[in-house]
């Protein structure tokens, strides 16, 4: 079992650009959540996808959007990047069909640096 995988590992962008981060959930999981972890902070919930729809959203602007594919993998898109978007972006998966929706497994994250 590969666990939760994320790509790329690191990314450097400039202000105003757009970025796409990718996540493949743990085998058997159908729900993907995205978190932003700024340096020295705890992860902040961005949103959650299930059945290809956004089910819940945290306090993030519309510049943050996502998508879930039929194979349960997911993308996080951030438009008009700001310096403050620099962070570690974590993907977590859980399994509603497995009734393990409260157990989230985290990927290693994508480190985004905005210059």
């Amino acid at each position, binding site marked *: 079992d590969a666990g939760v995988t994320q790509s790329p590992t690191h990314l450097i962008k400039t202000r105003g650009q757009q970025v796409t981060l990718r996540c493949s959930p743990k085998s058997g999981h159908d729900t993907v959540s995205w*978190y932003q972890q700024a340096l020295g902070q705890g992860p902040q919930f961005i949103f959650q996808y299930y059945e290809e729809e956004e089910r819940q959203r945290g306090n993030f602007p519309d510049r943050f959007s996502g998508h879930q594919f039929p194979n349960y993998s997911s993308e996080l898109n951030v438009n008009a990047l700001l310096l403050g978007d620099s962070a570690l972006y974590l993907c977590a998966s859980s399994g509603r069909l497995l009734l393990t929706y*409260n157990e989230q497994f985290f990927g290693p994250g994508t480190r985004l640096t905005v210059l």
Partner: protein
Amino acid sequence: AQSVTQPDIHITVSEGASLELRCNYSYGATPYLFWYVQSPGQGLQLLLKYFSGDTLVQGIKGFEAEFKRSQSSFNLRKPSVHWSDAAEYFCAVGTVTGNQFYFGTGTSLTVIP
């Protein structure tokens, strides 16, 4: 509103000493509580979780935590710390529906020989 507070930003303990990391939560219903550990540059690894039942839960790597509803606390403990335990520790509360997790700001643990 849901929230998690970890009062200790940084803790230093000697190897072999006992450890207790504090966590207080605010949640309107029965909480689902978690402790995660994060090594530098890594993702989060689940140490243990509390959903219901016995208020003392055992986790991996010799960690345990006790849920105290009256104090809204879920403190993490380990009787004897190893140098490899040095990491960042996060407490989290999850909603019943599993739609959202709320994390504390973390406690950084340093272990000295």
